[in-house]
């Protein structure tokens, strides 16, 4: 009987763990967000990131706040409590290759310091630098549990959640219908 109880408990725990690993991120109700919404996800910048990056990173988060009927919000904080930590690594895989990473438990977002990052939100990047606003927008989409869209070639009409990107581009700065509809599928109006 005791063994049966252990097996039952283990099975239940395994099923629960499998569900949680695939379930969209649950936004907690931690009070009022900056625009009065009641559910928000906090993020902060590690000391490895220059304050000059703040506008581009904030814009990357904000593009997801403007989706119709959404009841969640990203909020930047400075405390070390619940948050997604954004930071820069010295050199992940050199120039080219991987630009940025997000852990699917949403605890960390890393930007490859080997790349030349364009942080000016009032100008477009040159052909050899990466638009920080764009890449941050894509990674914040992952923080919302959005997967890649399956677009493997470059096209200015691609969604922000396309699989690949390149130097000098800015089209991830704004969402496409794919991004909006998938966000609304994960977080339908009235679900929070």
């Amino acid at each position: 009987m005791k063994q049966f109880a252990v097996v039952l408990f283990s099975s239940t725990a395994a099923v629960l763990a499998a569900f949680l690993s695939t379930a969209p991120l649950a936004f907690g109700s931690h009070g009022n967000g900056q625009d009065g919404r009641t559910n928000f996800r906090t993020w902060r910048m590690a000391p490895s990131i220059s304050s000059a990056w703040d506008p581009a990173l904030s814009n990357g988060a904000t593009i997801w706040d403007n989706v119709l009927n959404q009841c969640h919000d990203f909020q930047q904080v400075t405390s070390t409590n619940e948050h997604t930590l954004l930071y820069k690594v010295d050199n992940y895989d050199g120039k080219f290759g991987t630009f940025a990473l997000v852990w699917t438990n949403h605890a960390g977002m890393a930007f490859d310091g080997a790349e030349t990052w364009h942080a000016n939100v009032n100008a477009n990047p040159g052909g050899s630098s990466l638009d920080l606003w764009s890449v941050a927008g894509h990674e914040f989409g992952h923080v919302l549990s959005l997967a890649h869209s399956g677009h493997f070639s470059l096209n200015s009409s691609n969604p922000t959640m396309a699989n690949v990107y390149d130097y000098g581009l800015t089209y991830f700065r704004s969402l496409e219908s794919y991004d909006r509809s998938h966000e609304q599928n994960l977080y339908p109006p009235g679900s929070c």
Partner: protein
Amino acid sequence: MRSVTRPRIVAALAGLLVAIGAVSLSVFVPQQDGGDHGSLAPLPPGPPKMQAVEATIESVSLGELKARSRVVFVGTVVAEGGSEGIGVAGPPESGGELTVHRVRFSVERTLRGEDVRELDVIVPDISELDGFEIGERYLVFSENRAFGDGRVSGQSPTGYYQGSFRAIGDNARNDRTAESLSINELASELRRNPQ
């Protein structure tokens, strides 16, 4: 009687475990061939790979794969190593350090680069970039890449999954990018246009 039997059972079980371990090792570690050209040291065992990561990666077209890759080969995956730290700290829940792993190929045909019998390629421990399966045959475009502080460097698929094609006979197909190639035609093209 009982006190004599139990140690024998324990010893027998221990022997069985050692035997299973030896068999497993012989399956996962490729046999070395006495130092012939192309023979590599055993892959580092390492801890299980860290996964659960999504990434934004550089777009690499087929034309760029052909132009940029220093090594192009057809081979079968014979082994996969464990995680190796690259000397770069990860986020709080990454396990401490960012990691990569090696995938070993038995090389059947080199279309560009030095002719070797075996070749390791390095793949970041990012779940969506990990597309190689032991026993499967691939056409791989690769380039030299250094990770982190340079502790781990060597050949790595160009554009990661964009540079690896599943090969069946003369046909090579990348299911993600929907690109298809004839290996023989590619070999001719690379001969005509060497780097």
